[in-house]
């Protein structure tokens, strides 16, 4: 499986795609747009895994024998962790394949309906913010404090927009997310991309 991650991310993506198509065939309520978002999320995760497993030819050319040996030594723990990822990815796909955009309970008043939807939006925003903070807390930090502050400030303003505007927040929060993505440095962007895609899915699809 480990060599498959390294060598055949495209094949894995094709298998996942076929699995989703099969789920749709058996009646899973997934729209074309949702399927595209799931595939984008899976592609981003696979890209992250693949990047952790490979080194560019240019980098290899610049390595001395000692640094090459050091790199091989540090690669082993990464490979061990990657072994856990199929289970995580499978769980994500299973959760993703359950996308049905459940609507709010029908017994709710209009005010409670808005609160129900807005709670989901806030919890979705929390996922991105919590990942950024946890990544920033690692030693050494995986995401810089400057970038994490941007994520937290975006999160704070979005939650306040949701609270202030009731049901009319979606466009402003999604536009803010696009602006945030533009401000993230290129070297940190891939680490946040899976969570950004997930958040976009959540904000777009919740009724």
């Amino acid at each position: 499986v480990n060599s498959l991650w390294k060598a055949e991310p495209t094949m894995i993506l094709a298998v996942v795609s076929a699995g989703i198509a099969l789920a749709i065939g058996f009646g899973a309520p997934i729209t074309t747009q949702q399927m595209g978002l799931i595939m984008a999320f899976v592609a981003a995760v696979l890209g992250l895994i693949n990047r952790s497993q490979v080194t560019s030819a240019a980098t290899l050319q610049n390595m001395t024998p000692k640094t090459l040996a050091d790199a091989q030594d540090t690669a082993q723990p990464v490979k061990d962790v990657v072994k856990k990822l199929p289970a995580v990815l499978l769980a994500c796909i299973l959760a993703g394949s359950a996308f049905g955009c459940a609507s709010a309970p029908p017994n709710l008043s209009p005010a409670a309906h808005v609160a129900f939807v807005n709670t989901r939006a806030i919890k979705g925003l929390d996922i991105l913010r919590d990942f950024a903070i946890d990544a920033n807390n690692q030693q050494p930090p995986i995401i810089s404090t400057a970038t994490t502050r941007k994520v937290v400030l975006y999160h704070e303003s979005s939650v306040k927009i949701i609270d202030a505007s009731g049901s009319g927040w979606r466009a402003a929060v999604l536009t803010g997310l696009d602006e945030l993505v533009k401000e993230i440095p290129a070297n940190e962007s891939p680490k946040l991309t899976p969570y950004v895609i997930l958040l976009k899915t959540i904000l777009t699809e919740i009724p």
Partner: protein
Amino acid sequence: MNQNLINVAIAQAPAVIGFLKEAFLEAHPTDPQPTDEEVIAAYHSAFASSIAKDEAYLAAHPEA
């Protein structure tokens, strides 16, 4: 660093999956339905705790 990133992603996975299940799975028709008061209280709780975590982080990491 990659190992730390993957560890953080794995640590986040249960919360992400739990959220997706809660957010997107249709409730079974026989499940008890939440009341207005419960839903609104859950919203205020989510809002308050979410903002509190933002403020705590920003206070601990002032702009350089």
